[in-house]
């Protein structure tokens, strides 16, 4: 039995996305999301080094919206907090959240890969 509260993804949102598109297309959509998320995480890592909080906030905003589409609930939550702290110039909080976001994206990618495996069999 799956502990829904601990899951990094919301299966209801993924089911809705499948209903709106198709089961055949969903793995491709998820792949594009995870690839895009990887790119944004890499960019955030670069921006951390530069200390560019405004640009980090912009990346977090973009990740927030796509994470919502794909049911990556923890990624969405942390992205939203990172966007706020980045815009506010709260350096320590933003940098800490950026690290948490990287972990959350990894967990979401793992859960999404398992989901794709499950619907593909």
């Amino acid at each position, binding site marked *: 039995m799956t502990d829904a509260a601990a899951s990094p993804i919301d299966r209801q949102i993924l089911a809705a996305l499948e209903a709106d598109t198709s089961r055949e297309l969903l793995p491709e*959509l998820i792949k594009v999301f995870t690839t895009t998320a990887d790119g944004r995480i890499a960019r955030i890592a670069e921006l951390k080094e530069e200390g560019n909080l405004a640009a980090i906030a912009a990346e977090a905003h973009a990740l927030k919206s796509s994470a919502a589409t794909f049911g990556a609930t923890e990624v969405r939550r942390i992205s939203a907090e990172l966007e706020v702290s980045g815009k506010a110039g709260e350096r320590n909080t933003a940098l800490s959240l950026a690290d948490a976001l990287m972990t959350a994206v990894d967990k979401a990618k793992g859960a999404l890969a398992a989901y794709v495996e499950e619907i593909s069999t």
Partner: protein
Amino acid sequence: MDNLDALPLSSRVQSDADFENLIRWIGRRNTEAASLEWHVVLADDDASNRLVLGSLLEKSGIRATTVENGRDALALLDDGHIDLFLLDINMPEMNGLETAAAIRALPTPDSDIPLVAITSDVSPKRLADMRDAGFDLCLEKPVRRDALFKVILGILSRRVEN
């Protein structure tokens, strides 16, 4: 998760479809195409959002052209007829607010094309910004297909040729 209601930003559009007008229009068309032949341009800098929204549009029988920013969306006005723009707000090069304002300032009939914002920021300030830029409606992300189609049908069913 249910997000069926679009936020109106102007009095130019209505969210309910004019089915009688739409049925008259379809009845006059001598075509077997499975498409409504509406052309919607979607601008969003996120590849996954472009792919999802493009899929939702095409599954609804609507031709979609997707681009990465407002500048590329504006350039499509030179290439042919566009029925409606779906614009993300935060985009590089030219954001959604700048794009909407540029379209509304055109000295051509294209300035009247319906504009729908797609965003995850529906704060009062952002809604006011979108209204000032000339948007007609706002859909909050994540967008569901039924909400998207309802909005497009509500707008375009009134604009088909009589």
